């Protein structure tokens, strides 16, 4: 249900009602039944309907249009990992989101495991792989390595994307703001201090840049 707003925006080639009809996600429909606009959709959904057939869609990933054939129930995370072999976004195998799967959709950090791939048609998807181009690596990746904001590394790409999004949104963010903006991600090894030091350092240079341009 985390992606309710996203579905409502009808940003892509699929609207939510079509999706409900086709996919037969009975649980989702029941939970949304209180919303008046959904009444018709709910009426159309039969319990235990066989999932809709895979559909071919075009997703814009890291600046490239990519054709994929996926079921409407496929999450963006699974689509990126299993169809496009972009395994930087990590799967922690949990329906709830803790950020290892963070990617940017139209510039906003989202948990790709909580977003349906078909709902991202027409949007700009950026994965962690976009932050490294040959020898050029993004300052956030460099900062994570410099401050050792990683150990096992499994939560790291998601944390990198969350940090990138936070600093894009607020280049001169304060320590408290950074803690807040990075509070959606979890690390088990215990790398928070390095991550925070990395973010603070970049935000400080962001603050200098902002001041300079004024």
């Amino acid at each position, binding site marked *: 249900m985390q992606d309710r707003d996203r579905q409502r925006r009808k940003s892509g080639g699929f609207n939510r009602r079509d999706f409900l009809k086709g996919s037969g996600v009975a649980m989702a429909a029941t939970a949304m039944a209180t919303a008046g606009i959904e009444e018709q959709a709910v009426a159309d959904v039969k319990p235990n309907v066989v999932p809709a057939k895979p559909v071919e869609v075009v997703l814009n990933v890291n600046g490239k249009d990519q054709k994929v054939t996926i079921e409407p129930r496929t999450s963006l995370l*699974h689509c990126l990992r*299993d169809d496009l072999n972009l395994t930087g976004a990590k799967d922690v195998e949990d329906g709830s989101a803790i950020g290892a799967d963070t990617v940017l959709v139209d510039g906003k950090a989202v948990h790709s495991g909580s977003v349906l791939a078909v709902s991202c048609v027409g949007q700009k998807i950026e994965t962690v792989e976009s932050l490294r181009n040959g020898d050029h*690596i993004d300052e956030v990746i460099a900062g994570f390595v410099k401050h*050792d904001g990683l150990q096992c590394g499994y939560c*790291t790409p998601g944390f990198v994307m969350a940090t990138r999004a936070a600093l894009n949104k607020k280049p001169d963010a304060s320590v408290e703001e950074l803690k807040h903006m*990075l509070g959606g991600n979890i690390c088990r*090894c215990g790398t928070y201090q390095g991550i925070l030091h990395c973010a603070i350092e970049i935000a400080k240079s962001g603050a200098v840049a902002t001041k300079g341009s004024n």
Partner: protein
Amino acid sequence: MSDTATTRKVGWKPRGENTILGTRVPRIDGVEKASGAAKYAADINTPGTLYVRLLTSDRPHAKIKKLDVKKAEKVPGVKMVHIIKDVDSEVHWDGDMIAAVAAERIEQAMEGVKAIEIEYETLDTYVDDRDVAAAEKAKRAKSLGKRETKDFDAALTAAAHKHTGFYGIPVISHMCMEPHGSHCEWKDKENLLAHVSTQWTSGIPGQLASATGVDAANVTAICNYIGGGFGSKFSAGEWGLVCAVMAQKAGRPIRLVLDRATELKTPGTRPSAFAEITVGADEKGNVTCWESHHWGTSGPQGGTIDSGVVPYVFTKIKNYRRKRTGIATDTGPFQAWRAPDHPQAAALTLTAFDDLAAKMGMDSLEFFKKNLKLTLRPELYADELEIGAKIMDWKARWHPNGKGDVKNGTRQGLGLALHTWGGGANATAVALRVNPDGTVESTSATQDLGTGTRTCIAVILAETFGIPLSSVKVHIGSSKYPNAGGSGGSTTIGGVSGPVRRAGLEALWKILDLVAKRHKVDAGSLSAKNEKIYAGDKVVCSWQQACGLLGAAPLETQSRGRKNDGLTSQGVGGIQMADVSVDVETGVVRMNKMLCVQDCGTIIDRQTAESQVLGGLIMGISYSLSEERIIDKATGRYINADLENYKLPRIGDIGELIAEFYEPDEQYKKGVVGLGEPPVISTGAAISNAVANAIGVRVPVLPLTPKRVLEALKGAKA
């Protein structure tokens, strides 16, 4: 040449002569990990791969009466249903594995699992590990031994000060971010390539081979990266064997990664420990006697923490009576959890010590210092406590328990605790190759859990040969490489350091001999640094020219295991101090500052060493304040087996962390000692003691959730 033998002694360079060893070196695989290029077992996705979901038991103890997979087999995309436990088998915990469904897509596998029809006959169920009387009544308690000294009763009677209390620390899960799992692909009928998320790459082929009936020589296990293990990923696991067998039967690659709930329930938990403890001391606060009965559960087997670690650190108390009871519960089995048994033992023991100090009106720091003679390392702990007290400004800031100022409904407190660990090197073999172009390669089947194994190997090679990190290639994580020990118990960095340095020196000396011969200089006078070979302080040739003397073929050396050559050692102490604020209205505990003063012998890479300490502190904060397995007593189910309800700290919850290494010269000379376990051990006791110092009452059971803090405060008022 006569000098050569004496100067050529295996060892680290004298302190001060290192150029890279002991400095802050960023991980050599850091960019690979942070940019998402690093491939974990859960990322392997070769063409044709089938994805697996498991049907697990939703009963804690039951017999399977019906298991019908026909409908599951007909779900579109489902290619195979593999039965792990058939009709008439028993399941022993919520999460016990029953069947595995492989499908073209993970969503289809999930649907397949839902289509399996299963019926159970519920059997007698017992899950309570805290109430030892109830466990005895239910016949689930088993005495695991008693020990006492003959003068215990007299000592207790003679004690001027006594304290009796109840303490506890519940079961927690490992919660690896990359769940347990593997990707198995049969290259042909006889040969298996398995990518496994494992702490022991060398140990995998034998297990997969015996499960699939092929020779171990035909199995290659790869673990280039592992997304967390913490002690739970040594064996291939039932899931790992199932993955290999299913891939063999299906004739297609299979990826089996546990779903999050199963990850929390099945592949490992840390045993709980609860205790009734009495500590006695003489008039001056010298502890004279100890009585404890501790119990807990490790799942169906019914163990708890070892008897040897209670009392913890203060092991030389002369008079004691100790009793231990294991409780068999219908809950998930245990696995080693970072510093097995020590965090629990610290949380039981050092809190009881602290309560006796409070009862006597003594400053905890003074009390612990006074009793250091009861530990194995009195001088070391005394030094570390002094360093810690200075950093925390203990003397100025400590106040008697509950007597500090109240600011905005918040009370501040300080607490401390001590810990110990072994950390000796494991048996790892390393093969080294110096190429004629001057590049150096090492191969070993060892793995990097996040400790920085690759980086530490590279640092040692760069230091030994006087070459930059860019000239070093480190190959790890394949079972086809020389056999390496499992990464557990803080044994890996020591395990690789000895053989890498030894093999490195052997290769260096051979090359220096060639240089000596060619340039007609004394080999004993030669050294390698700054990519050059020096005779004294005169440059003889470049490193590359020296390696060119090898001709076309590379030079190879190898070394294995731990030797008494001073490269590695074992046995550390360490102390922690916590500064917390407790909101007495809401019961919320906030971390202000957490310090670890740690000894660890020779440091290879200061940056990753520091990260081990910081990570230990954060995991410690986690089990101290928020994380625990919650089993519903009525149903026996693990009700918070997901990342939202199994509470881990976030980036804003940890306060300021300080990793302070204790490293006088004798520590450097000691050799390398592993560092993974020590910093996670005493955090629970230190934080619990800080909370008691803040609010003036002990919250007896970790984690110190708002509910438990408020209950303790309420009890104190009543």
